[in-house]
């Protein structure tokens, strides 16, 4: 199942591993394939907007490149559409969120914020309003691990608590979309180091029902630790006078340690994924360490490498 045939992709990973960078890279690669892509961040965060060169978060779509738009959601933005479409009434956010009593009530129902935002994502894909963009693919710059997993299960959790009403209906629609691996995919993001890789594999163990959704892992922030294949460092080091060239010896040791540590982490991820999942998940991309992290000026070149990788051998088409 090709990653680009999905309708919805969640980019998952721990804090600080580069989920936003990977979301944008994926979006740019998908747009190169001719798809109209929406990248969405939730809870009114503005990382995505900032990195793409905008000031602050905005609900309305903003174009970052041909075929790529970004949006920042809050539950309050999404509930207005919910009210319009489901309750056939005017903007709900005014009464629900700005009314003190109701605001408290809405905040007090765990997962309701998640549900309104996911509901809007679902509506964008299945039944967009006339004013909404028509996306072929939506990429969610998902919150860090713990919350990311909660988000994937938000609809089921809501159904455990809520027996009926429009929220239950909405939860069923969302669960229908999210549980379908043909439409919804997960992309893991990690760093080339022991701890992040182990945590990524622990995350895979917690997916509970979402294993089939995994369509790739991205190792972000790879550093260039290329070392000569031969002769061995220990051999070369033994030829150096350790007293005279103490600093060179120490740096050589450090380079070898870091090079092994990085390679071990990448191999560990590859093997760990293969062990856990019957259908091997590809390592999508080994994204090089970019000196100053993602900035708007890097955008035009982003995604080419990943785009090339996503093309089936022998040209395009399934």
């Amino acid at each position, binding site marked *: 199942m090709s990653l680009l045939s999905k309708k919805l992709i969640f980019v998952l990973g721990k804090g*600080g591993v580069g989920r936003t960078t990977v979301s944008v890279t994926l979006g740019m690669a998908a747009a190169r394939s001719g798809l109209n892509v929406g990248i969405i961040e939730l809870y009114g965060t503005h990382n995505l907007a900032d990195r793409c060169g905008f000031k602050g978060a905005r609900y309305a779509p903003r174009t970052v490149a041909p075929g790529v738009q970004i949006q920042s959601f809050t539950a309050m933005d999404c509930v207005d559409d919910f009210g319009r479409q489901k309750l056939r009434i005017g903007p709900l956010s005014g009464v629900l969120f700005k009314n003190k009593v109701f605001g408290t009530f809405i905040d007090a129902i765990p997962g309701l914020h998640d549900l309104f935002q996911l509901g809007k994502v679902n509506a964008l894909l299945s039944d967009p309003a006339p004013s909404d963009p028509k996306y072929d693919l939506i990429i969610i710059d998902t919150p860090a691990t713990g919350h990311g997993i*909660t988000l994937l299960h938000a609809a089921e959790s809501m159904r455990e608590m809520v027996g009926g009403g429009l929220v239950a209906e909405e939860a069923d629609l969302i669960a229908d979309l999210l549980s379908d691996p043909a439409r919804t995919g997960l992309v893991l993001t990690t760093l080339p180091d022991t701890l992040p890789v182990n945590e990524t594999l622990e995350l895979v163990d917690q997916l509970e029902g979402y294993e089939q959704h995994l369509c790739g892992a991205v190792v972000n922030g790879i550093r260039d630790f290329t070392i000569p294949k031969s002769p061995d*460092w220990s051999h070369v080091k033994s030829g150096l006078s350790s007293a005279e060239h103490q600093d060179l010896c120490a*740096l050589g040791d450090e380079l070898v340690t*870091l090079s092994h540590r990085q390679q071990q982490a990448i191999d560990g991820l590859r093997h760990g994924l293969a062990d856990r999942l019957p259908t091997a998940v590809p390592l999508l991309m080994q994204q090089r360490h970019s000196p100053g992290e993602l900035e708007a000026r890097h955008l035009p070149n982003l995604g080419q490498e990943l785009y090339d990788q996503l093309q089936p051998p022998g040209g395009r088409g399934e």
Partner: protein
Amino acid sequence: MSDSEPLVVLCCGTGGVGKTTSAAAIGVSWAMSGKRTCVLTIDPAKRLADAFGLESLDNDPNEVDLSALDVPSGGALFAMMLDRKQTFDESVVALSPDAETAEKLLQNRYYRAVSTRLTGSHEYMATEKLYRLLQSGQFDVIVVDTPPSQHALDFFMAPGRIQRLFDGPMMTRLLKPRQGLTGGSTRRLVKWLLSLVGKQVVDDIANFFSLMSQVSGGFAAHSGVVAGHLNGPRTHVMLVTSAASSARAGALEFVRAMKENDRKIHGFVLNRFVHPTATIDTAAPDASIDGWAEWGEAIQRYANERNAIAARHKQAGHQLSAAAGGVPVWTLPYLPSNADEIAGLARLASHLPPLMRA
């Protein structure tokens, strides 16, 4: 407040900066200065258990074997990981007037959602756990690895928000409209609410708040004690960050929010800091050494890369120091070998100054 009261060290910061590792290093450093120390982590980090040589971390303190280190008498280290639901359940049982009330609460569907998923419940239960650790009188120092949060001050604000929800009359007024709000607009709101979530949830929630009213006084007393401690002189707030630009932005936001709320930051920990290499000359060794041409080039390339990172980190350090306004900034070095074992943590701890003994 007296010096005999436990010192609470709060490690705050955004995700991905190595907060858990820094909290562990701070814990080791206090233990090595002779204090009976407990590290309370919120992140379900198996690696912390590994680093401490423990089978696993659970909801109660387990002692860490420090025999490999030179620990003065009195020094000891314990570690634990917050189990939000277990802590909530235990407190409900302890604070309920009778077993029946406790059981009804534990079985309530809304309670089960609140105790596992309500936004802020991690912070709320961390507060409850901290209360028990403070009361136990077992520790001189309690290091708290605060939960990753969306907003900088969640650890300080979220418990109060939840407490107000439990205590407040709002929910009761809403759920028993005949006694409270009677206007036509309120009736319309209630109608929408019922069509949104259905009658069963509204009943569950009404039951929950009615039961909770018998318990929440106990919770309120606990969070009051903890809030008093956190606002007092026996709490140190440490902001953990790294030189990565996204982490730096989060750190500056935290500084701004703390200042705005008149809260003090006692120290900054700049983690995974890369220092420049010593000056090297790859032309110095005898060029006839087999393989030196290739290795010299590789080492030079690595040194250039590391120095470029070091230059950015140095700049980030200056920026942080400027924002810190005289508050000390300590750098923990990026270690080429993994820091995830007790020796690595002790190495990191050696970079922390002889700690403040306020």
